[in-house]
């Protein structure tokens, strides 16, 4: 058993629902007890969808368990077929149905329906939502296309000379982070390179669209969490190469363009439209100097977290002090990135552990999911959301992609606005003795609620009386701060104070200093400041 307060991902059948809800003409029949219909609200409330997701539930209750749940499965499938006339039916089970082993997939196959019926294996006690979405999309692509796989050794037809290369965009889905706008942005970007989009899937695709997938010259794996299996299979079976760079951030977008050029065998050095974004100049603009070295903690799905780390370091000049993901399936990518930025990777889906690590790292900005937004709020740290799990706020009314050059603009605004501006920061340093302008007063944009959190971040230390000497217990000895040193410490901006304190204490401990004076503080500063 795993103790869970909040979870980053739902069960795998939610992933299957996301694929079905992304598409048209596909209906999912879920063998699930009464109550599992709650999942509809994710789509209708969080994403504000105007239609119910195309899902029918068997809604079995205790009284059916003794009787004929198999009959219930069949009548639900028949009713869904008659009412919704889907062109493909997916059959899945939720956690409870998995235990009663009615084999709804086999039951459905036996009904002889005149449309493809695909049975999904969604191990509810071992896997999670993204895995379920990835698996469902793969089964759908494979199920519809396996009879069309060319014979081994058959040559792939060459693109006609002069024809625009065709690409599929794979992975965008319902309840995905900013997928709706990313698709528009990437389509625009590809168009500027002379590449045409053949099919976008699963978002907005029909079963007939999936049948057209092999017509493309290559696939763009926009969201590996959802589409890497399907891309791999298409590559193996249809010889379609996969563009794997996810174009989030300026550098990644440039790499993406280069990769598209290689895979599509086209010259991308001179594109029709100038490639342009405000973001690089905004970042180079003199007012952005204050962003240098801002400590940032990053947590999310692997794709968005790794992309965020690169943007943070290379494009905004931040310092990454934490990098992690809840997606164990993609832990390797995050581990590699963490090594590049010299931080310990955090691979966990335990919200409490993430909270502890954030508090420990004393970041000045948290880039995370809605969970980290709560964590940051509690700790009084600014936060921007970069990844699913999604919240109603992650479906803004305006155009707000994360990918491509416009995505970089959006990211600049979203990440920088929660921070204090450069001049504000200087003023705080200059007027820190002012009773209303002190560092305990949180920035007004964080709201009054943030103040309490700020205090609890460093309990009893900075809020303690200045006259009292603070004793710090270590294994061998007791270390103490003189009141002058405590006072001096307070003059250091609060967002680096925790680190200054820890560094000074570490410095003192290493030298066997028992009383930390103002001198020790500055000695330590000189030591760690290199």
């Amino acid at each position, binding site marked *: *058993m*795993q103790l869970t307060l909040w979870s980053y991902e739902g069960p795998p*059948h939610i992933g299957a629902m996301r694929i079905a809800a992304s598409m048209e003409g596909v209906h999912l029949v879920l063998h699930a*007890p009464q*109550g599992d219909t709650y999942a509809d609200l994710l789509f209708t409330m969080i994403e504000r969808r105007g*239609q119910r997701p195309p899902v029918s539930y068997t809604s079995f209750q205790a009284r059916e368990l003794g009787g004929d749940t198999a009959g219930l499965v069949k009548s639900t499938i028949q009713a869904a077929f008659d009412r919704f006339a889907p062109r493909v039916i997916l059959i899945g089970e939720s956690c409870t149905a998995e235990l009663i082993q009615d084999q709804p997939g086999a039951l459905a196959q036996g009904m002889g329906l005149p449309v493809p019926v695909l049975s999904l294996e969604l191990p509810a006690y*071992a896997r999670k939502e993204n895995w379920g979405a990835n698996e469902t999309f793969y089964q759908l692509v494979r199920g519809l296309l396996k009879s069309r796989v060319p014979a081994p050794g058959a040559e792939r037809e060459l693109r006609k000379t002069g024809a625009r290369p065709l690409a599929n965009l794979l992975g965008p889905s319902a309840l995905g982070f900013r997928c709706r706008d990313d698709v528009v942005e990437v389509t625009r970007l590809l168009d500027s390179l002379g590449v045409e989009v053949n099919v976008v899937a699963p978002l907005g695709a029909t079963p007939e669209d999936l049948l057209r997938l092999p017509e493309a010259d290559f696939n763009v794996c926009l969201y590996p969490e959802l589409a890497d299996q399907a891309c791999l299979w298409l590559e193996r079976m249809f010889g379609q190469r996969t563009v794997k760079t996810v174009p989030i951030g300026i550098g990644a977008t440039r790499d993406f363009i280069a990769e598209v050029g290689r895979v599509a065998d086209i010259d991308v050095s001179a594109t029709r439209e100038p490639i342009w974004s405000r973001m690089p100049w905004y970042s180079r603009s003199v007012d952005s100097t204050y962003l240098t070295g801002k400590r940032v903690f990053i947590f999310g799905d692997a794709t968005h977290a790794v992309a965020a780390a690169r943007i943070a370091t290379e494009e905004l000049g931040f310092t990454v002090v934490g990098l992690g993901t809840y997606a164990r399936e993609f832990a390797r990518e995050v581990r590699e990135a963490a090594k590049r930025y010299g931080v310990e990777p955090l691979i966990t889906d335990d919200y409490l552990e993430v909270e502890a690590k954030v508090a420990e790292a004393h970041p000045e900005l948290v880039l995370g999911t809605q969970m980290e937004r709560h964590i940051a709020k509690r700790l009084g740290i600014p936060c921007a959301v970069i990844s699913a799990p999604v919240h109603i706020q992650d479906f803004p009314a305006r155009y707000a992609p994360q990918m491509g050059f416009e995505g970089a603009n959006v990211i600049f605004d979203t990440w920088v606005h929660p921070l204090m501006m450069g001049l504000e920061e200087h003023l705080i340093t200059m007027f820190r003795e002012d009773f209303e302008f002190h560092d305990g007063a949180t920035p007004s944009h964080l709201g009054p609620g943030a103040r309490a959190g700020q205090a609890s971040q460093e309990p009893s230390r900075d809020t303690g009386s200045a006259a009292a000497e603070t004793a710090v217990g270590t294994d061998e000895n007791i270390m103490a701060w003189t009141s002058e040193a405590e006072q001096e410490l307070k003059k250091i901006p609060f967002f680096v104070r925790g680190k200054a304190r820890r560094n000074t204490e570490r410095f003192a401990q290493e030298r066997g200093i028992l009383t930390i004076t103002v001198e020790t503080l500055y000695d330590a500063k000189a030591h760690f400041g290199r």
Partner: protein
Amino acid sequence: MMGADISPRTPTEGCDASMVTRERGQRQVFCGLAGIVWLHRKIQDAFFLVVGSRTCAHLLQSAAGVMIFAEPRFATAILQERDLAGLADCNQELDRVAAEILERRPDIKTLFLVGSCPSEVIKLDLAKAAERLSDAYRGRVRVLDYSASGLETTFTQGEDACLKSLVPELPALADTERSLLVVGTLPDVVEDQFLRLFAELGIGPVHFLPPRRASEFPPVGRGTRLLLAQPFLGETARALQGRGATLLTAPYPFGIEGTLGWLRAAADAWGIPAARLETVTAPAVARAELSLVRQREALTGKRITFLPDSQLEIPIARFLSRECGMELVEVATPFLDRQLMESELALLPAGVRLTEGQDVDLQLDRVRADRPDITVCGLGLANPLEAEGLRTKWSIELVFTPVHGFDQAADLAELFARPLARGALLRV
């Protein structure tokens, strides 16, 4: 105002259970776990540990949504492959998880082990586990169990199951004493209003179940008179009757009429004259009537359909029909407890379309054909209906908003008036 008295039942008025249409099919409702969202806020030293799957955790999180800012006093012990394969001993695992919670939250006095669909299917004996843990934490934490699985419970029935599990724990009321026990989660502000009214009427002592703190468990015995504040607490009522309590038959305290009838049931049991009841309630009734005027203007003649969901459908339909002049198109309820609804059914207009159970697709067909001015439904259905140009009211608000009693009568009406007002306001 319309019918401040409970009219005696006549053949031309009121519904009887024989008029109910039963429907079976896909149900668009929460399971009983959703009740944890309000129960954990009411009983402040209790913790709810669901023993279930990732789906249970996800449901709780989705149902609670943005309402939770503080650390929740609920969690899920998620069953994993090794638990099911027998590689891990579920009881040992449960003990470990319980220890983890109680160490983290030393303020917890009652721990509920909440059964779910998977824990029931694998026949995990939570009663036994609760007994074992109670022994282990004796004197510090009381450990109880109940099932809120979708197999057994629909939405608000989860509260019934939870409160029922408290009944054996309640201290005994001496046979010589009597007291009034109000059963059902009420917001503190409403509890306090009722306490003042009971005090003025000379009814007492009054206790509430659930209590605000598990340390304030109310006594129960032969002198206990029960008033249900919520219409979905049949099992709890029967368990309390099993301990000698007497259930007072009354409508539910929604609107002026319902609240008055509810108080009258207690007043009668205490032998308080009708004139006294009238004097004591007169100021609150006058206030409620005054504030209802505006809402009634917005609601009179408007047509409403209730989809089966919170089990509050019948009493609220009665209020909206009799005190706000609304026309009831269809009133559906997940299940009909004829005993508990007796007083309410008698007050519904004759011939109203009553449905028990659900086949959601057929039900939506009827909503589309009827095109009521407002449809009360769950969160999953609201936006799709709005997108079809139909105004809706989320049923979940009815269990989160203070809606009981005289002083909330207008607020209750306003919940339905607001979507209509908004619909009339918007030009986009």
